[in-house]
């Protein structure tokens, strides 16, 4: 007996029991072979990798029904469950994974400064390290195309729209009073500190049906979901001080931040054009609390701010100047919950409350107003597949505004309004392929004040023209109720309307981004009134119209030159409007035909420093010279500003920061003011409206104390 033979036989017998071969070919949707795909029987060791022709073949001893799995990076995992004997000569087509990075994105109108966002043009850090932005997120966004330079205002003016046409949202919930009040020749700043946010999306048109009550633009800020570590941030600045602390627990965290700003020492060293009685002074506190649940995240954000100033401003009509005093108190609360429900549903619920109280004295007029606003929002998202997603939501906005007016002649009158709006929307995201995507939505709004129902369709379509480029188009209707300055006098009106048409081309090639966007906007139903200023005696209607057409270009490159990152924005804008008190259609004074912005950041390794430069050019803005016939008949000279900053890392946790706005001291002109009455020669005297200060210096020292000292406040600058 040949024992060895028997053993050999037994071995082969065991291993040869019902051995079957599984084979086939793997291709993509266009029948190109896929090489390197992982093919295996789930739950077994049997499998292989496809060869360069996409073929695979392997043996298995498994019997019965099994699942064949084919996985490969950037394709959807393929599974086939069948009897082993059927698993041969397979022809398998893998579907592209639409979550992969090279999938087309709906990008018309949108600039994203997110972390992993595919369409990110700015990084979170850029918001705060841009020279000239002075740590203000709004200031940094003004270096992007589509914005116009209204230097004395500081708010966002987008594509021929005025500042009230841009709405700001924190975690999807509306902010009703986003800006700090300032004197008329000093630019304002965003109220909220940029380092609480890790995602910023700035849409200059054609945005989703989720957002309403904005004619021109939305700015979406997302607070940080999960801070990394416990730390204390200390900042000492030439204009004040900040203190922040983050505390972490197992499933929750709390960040608090307080700041105090006082311009008095600065103004006494570098006097400006205002005659300050009480220079700007403000204190603010912010807190974010986050709690993680098994399948959801709760965020509570609160900000409180008090500010005030008192001054005398030059005015051509008043020889002693105009006395101005302002005190503002602002409270903002925002709470939201995001969660995942079963079966690919996710849910979001949020609520915000704004309380804003202002007390203004102008010469002898005493104006007090208070705004109470709420926004509640609920939305559901269903993920049918990677190819089809549906969003539905509802929201309610409520604004209650009251004002009291008093002067030596009028002995106290009060007036106000309630502006409540109910809205519902639905929007679908459809990916036809990796190369083509559609977003189509519909928004319905009901205004209780006007008893008016509006319907806004929104549509955008994106098509990938090559591996690195894509074109998108967008269309949408946008409605917005008139702002508080009008509604407090007249409520028998209707919503203002805007229609956007956008064509976008984008090229994104490894550290280099080019975007070109052409648009046309058509405004109707704008508010008009028949007096110089809006007041009780004016008669109002919705007969105003406007248009804006333009081209925005953006180029960014951080690859070509080592340690240098730069971007260039150019906007061309042609816009005229007939609204408010305009006698004829004219180019408004917040429109610049040409806007150019160049921002550079250079990291000098030996100096442990980041040096930044930003240059802004804007062509002149219109103004009315009553000595010549006509309305908005003249144009100011162009605006130029070169700003520098320098961040020096003393150590990983200590940063010294310098910045100078308008290094060259260029004398910019915001406009001209004319006397109300002509002199004896029939000539209207004029004075130049100049910024409060041509230049601004800033020095700060920022220190982060953390357990393991690697974090710093570069974010904070």
């Amino acid at each position, binding site marked *: *007996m040949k*024992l060895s033979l*028997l*053993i050999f036989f*037994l*071995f082969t017998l*065991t*291993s040869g029991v019902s051995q079957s071969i599984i084979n086939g070919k793997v291709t993509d949707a266009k029948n190109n072979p896929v090489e*390197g795909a*992982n093919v*295996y029987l*789930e*739950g*077994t*060791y*049997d*499998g292989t*990798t496809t060869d360069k022709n996409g073929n695979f073949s392997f043996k298995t001893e498994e019997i019965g029904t099994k699942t064949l*799995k084919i*996985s490969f*990076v*950037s394709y959807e995992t393929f599974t086939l469950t069948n009897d082993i004997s059927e698993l041969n000569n397979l022809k398998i087509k893998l579907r592209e994974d639409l979550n*992969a*990075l*090279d999938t087309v994105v709906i990008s018309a109108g949108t600039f994203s400064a997110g*972390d992993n966002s595919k369409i990110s043009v700015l*990084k*979170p*850090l850029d918001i705060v390290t841009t020279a000239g932005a002075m740590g203000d997120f709004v200031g940094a966004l003004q270096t992007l195309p589509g914005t116009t330079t209204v230097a004395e205002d500081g708010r966002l003016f987008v594509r021929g729209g005025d500042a009230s046409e841009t709405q700001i949202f924190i975690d999807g919930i509306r902010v009703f009073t986003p800006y700090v009040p300032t004197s008329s020749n000093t630019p304002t700043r965003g109220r909220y500190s940029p380092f609480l946010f*890790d995602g910023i999306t700035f849409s200059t048109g054609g945005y989703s049906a989720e957002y309403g009550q904005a004619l021109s633009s939305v700015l979406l800020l997302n607070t940080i979901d999960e*801070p*990394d*570590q416990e730390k204390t941030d200390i900042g000492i600045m030439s204009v004040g001080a900040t203190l922040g602390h983050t505390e972490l627990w197992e499933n929750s965290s709390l960040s608090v931040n307080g700041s105090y700003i006082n311009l008095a020492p600065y103004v006494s060293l570098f006097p400006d054009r205002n005659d300050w009685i009480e220079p700007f002074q403000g204190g603010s506190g912010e807190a974010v609390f986050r709690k993680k649940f098994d399948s959801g995240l709760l965020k509570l954000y609160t900000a409180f701010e008090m500010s005030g100033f008192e001054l005398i401003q030059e005015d051509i009509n008043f020889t002693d100047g105009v006395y101005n005093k302002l005190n503002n108190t602002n409270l903002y609360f925002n709470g939201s919950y995001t969660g995942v429900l079963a079966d690919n549903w996710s849910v979001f619920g949020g609520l915000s409350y704004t309380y804003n109280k202002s007390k203004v004295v102008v010469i002898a007029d005493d104006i007090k107003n208070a705004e109470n606003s709420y926004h509640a929002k609920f939305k559901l998202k269903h993920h049918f597949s990677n190819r089809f997603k549906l969003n539905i939501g509802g929201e309610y906005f409520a604004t209650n505004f009251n004002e009291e007016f008093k002067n030596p002649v009028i002995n106290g009158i009060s007036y106000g309004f309630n502006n409540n709006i109910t809205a519902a929307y639905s929007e679908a995201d459809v990916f036809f392929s990796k190369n083509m995507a559609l977003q189509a939505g519909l928004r319905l709004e009901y205004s209780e004040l006007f008893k008016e129902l509006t319907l806004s369709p929104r549509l955008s379509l994106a098509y990938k023209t090559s591996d690195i480029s894509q074109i998108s188009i967008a269309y949408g209707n946008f409605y917005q109720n008139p702002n508080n300055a009008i509604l407090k006098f007249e409520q028998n009106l209707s919503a203002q309307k805007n229609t956007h048409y956008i064509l976008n081309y984008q090229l994104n090639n*490894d*550290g280099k981004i080019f975007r070109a966007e052409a648009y046309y906007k058509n405004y109707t139903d704008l508010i008009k009134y028949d007096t110089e200023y809006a007041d009780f005696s004016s008669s109002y209607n919705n007969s105003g119209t406007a248009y804006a057409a333009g081209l925005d270009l953006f180029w960014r490159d*951080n690859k070509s030159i080592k340690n240098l*990152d730069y971007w260039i924005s150019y906007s061309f804008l042609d816009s005229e409007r007939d609204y408010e008190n305009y006698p004829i259609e004219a180019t408004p004074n917040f429109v610049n035909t040409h806007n150019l912005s160049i921002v550079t950041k250079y990291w000098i*390794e*030996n100096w*442990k420093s980041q040096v930044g430069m930003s240059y802004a050019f804007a062509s002149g803005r219109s103004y009315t010279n009553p000595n010549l016939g006509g309305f908005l008949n003249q144009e100011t000279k162009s605006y130029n500003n070169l700003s520098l900053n320098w961040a020096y*890392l003393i*150590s*990983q946790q200590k940063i010294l920061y310098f910045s100078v706005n308008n290094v060259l001291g260029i004398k910019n002109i915001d406009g001209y003011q004319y006397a109300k009455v002509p002199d004896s020669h029939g000539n209207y005297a004029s004075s130049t409206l100049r910024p409060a200060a041509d230049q601004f210096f800033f020095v700060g020292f920022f220190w982060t104390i953390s*357990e*393991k000292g*690697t*974090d710093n406040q*570069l*974010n904070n600058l």
Partner: protein
Amino acid sequence: MTYFKLFIIGLAISLTGSLYAQTNYEKGMEKAFALWEINAIEASQLFERIASAEPENWLPPYYAAETLILDGFSKLDNKNVLESQLNLAQTFLNDATAISKNNPEIMVMQALLYTVYVASDGMTYGMMYGGKVIALYNQAEKLAPNNPRVVLNKAGWEIGGASYFGQDIQPFCKDLERALELFATFKPESQFAPNWGKERAEELLKDCK
């Protein structure tokens, strides 16, 4: 047939059976480690297949991730490929974590994944992941203060940060020396449990001299 023959046959049968039962995993893992020398991606795929057959074992998904992560350091300039690869590695790490919670070895691997991002684009990811990396090392250190890979990789990260900011790296050299001592006495928990890093520690120490 004699009893002896029957015994041999019986032994042969049981051996073949047990050989298969035992060696499928061992053979698979050994083959994957051998493949790793030649082709990291295919090795990762083999680890993925083993993971599918061994749903209770955290090691196959751990290595499926490690192969991709270490390979990522050679693809720092190819952003699209790198991100796809790291996304895949992340799913394997998630699988591994689901099987073995609070595992310092997996935390080290997660920190390394973030380190690849930071190495590829410090401007974008330095701020984003820097804090997370150090938090992971701190957490791993609390769980396993004498694990040589925890000590080594934490020191490696600190050295990277210090040299980026032009600071003295000497304070961390002591940690590297300590890691080397720990490697000398380290006993892996099982045949395929993580046992890498000694060479890396030696290499990093050269910069300290």
